[in-house]
């Protein structure tokens, strides 16, 4: 019988899969998964504060700032001052951003297909966690 795969190898495989997924998304749509998530949130929630967005997409504010700069340079979002509190920024999707998002949404289904491969890997990790729990 083959040796069962070590769960850490599965975790590594999941990481690799997600990395490749991200590369594929960038190649096909010009957007990373994180950037796509930001645009997805903004289309539903126009004029969002930076703080709200950071909580919604679970990104540290400094990491978010970098992503926002890139999206803004590509004219996919607009960052403006909050008229009621000039220290704060509000972020909105631009027409161009909507166009790219619509296109990316169509592509995402295809891009996300390899996600089914994750299932086996996660199964191994899950079994490992269960065995850890029961051996306690």
């Amino acid at each position, binding site marked *: 019988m083959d040796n069962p795969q070590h769960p850490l190898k599965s975790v590594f495989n999941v990481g690799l899969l997600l990395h490749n997924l991200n590369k594929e998304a960038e190649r096909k749509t010009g957007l990373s998964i994180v950037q796509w998530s930001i645009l997805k949130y903004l289309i539903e*929630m126009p*004029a969002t504060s930076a703080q*709200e967005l950071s909580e919604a997409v679970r990104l540290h504010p400094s990491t978010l700032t970098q992503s926002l700069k890139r999206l803004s340079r590509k004219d996919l979002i*607009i960052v403006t001052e909050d008229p009621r509190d000039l220290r704060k920024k509000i972020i*909105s999707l631009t027409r161009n951003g909507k166009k790219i998002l619509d296109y990316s949404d169509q592509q995402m289904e295809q891009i996300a297909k390899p996600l089914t491969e994750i299932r086996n890997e996660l199964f191994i990790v899950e079994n490992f966690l269960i065995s850890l729990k029961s051996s306690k």
Partner: protein
Amino acid sequence: MKKLFNSDNLKILESLSFTKTLYAFDFDGTLSKIVTEPGKATISMTTNLLLEELSTHAPVAVISGRSIADLKKHLKFVPKHVIGNHGLEGLGTRPDVLETAHKICATWQTTIKKHLPAEHLKSGVEIEDKKFSLAIHYRKSIAKKNAKLAILKIASNLDPRPRMILGKCVVNLLPPGAPHKGVALVELMLQNGIKSAFYIGDDDTDEDVFSLPNARIFTVRVGNKRTSQAQYYIQKQSEINKVFKTILHFFR
């Protein structure tokens, strides 16, 4: 407040059109010009057509201090959502609450007529009975300042004590616990599962919307006023058609 007609601010306005947004409008001084006789307020044919056209693209509401019956007389096109009496009408307020409001207003009216010095009633102060609230107008008064003071004095002694909302040459008296326009807008959004809204108004009664903490409500005031809580402003009421055309352009 920032100018609405600025390219960055218009981009934010445009982003509202990408999702389900409620477009809500005050009536007097916003959809219609302010006139000396409130009964003669009219919405222009063009504004009316633009309002109707917008309603084919997005949910539209008129939120006013007027009663719904009165609003319907003035609107040639009646949108799906018409909110009257600052939110008491049009949001499914329980009939017994309305009945009580009606009784309270009738009692107040009698008291005001009895106690307001006759000189004010003679010199242009008018009590408008909106069934579930009262509006005491002093726009036509020749002694506006005195008239306002006399109205406020009587109103603060009424029983039950009314919720007062001051507008342009008008003191609105609402039964205690009655909503204001801000509550009305949020309730309308909740009832219809809408997360973002556009609101435009010209008056102190609209500050209840402007001061809502919800970042998802894009607020515009007709006229620049330093102390207003609105985010954006247009210079004057005559720019309302430009506002409509700008929004409609986003849907084309």
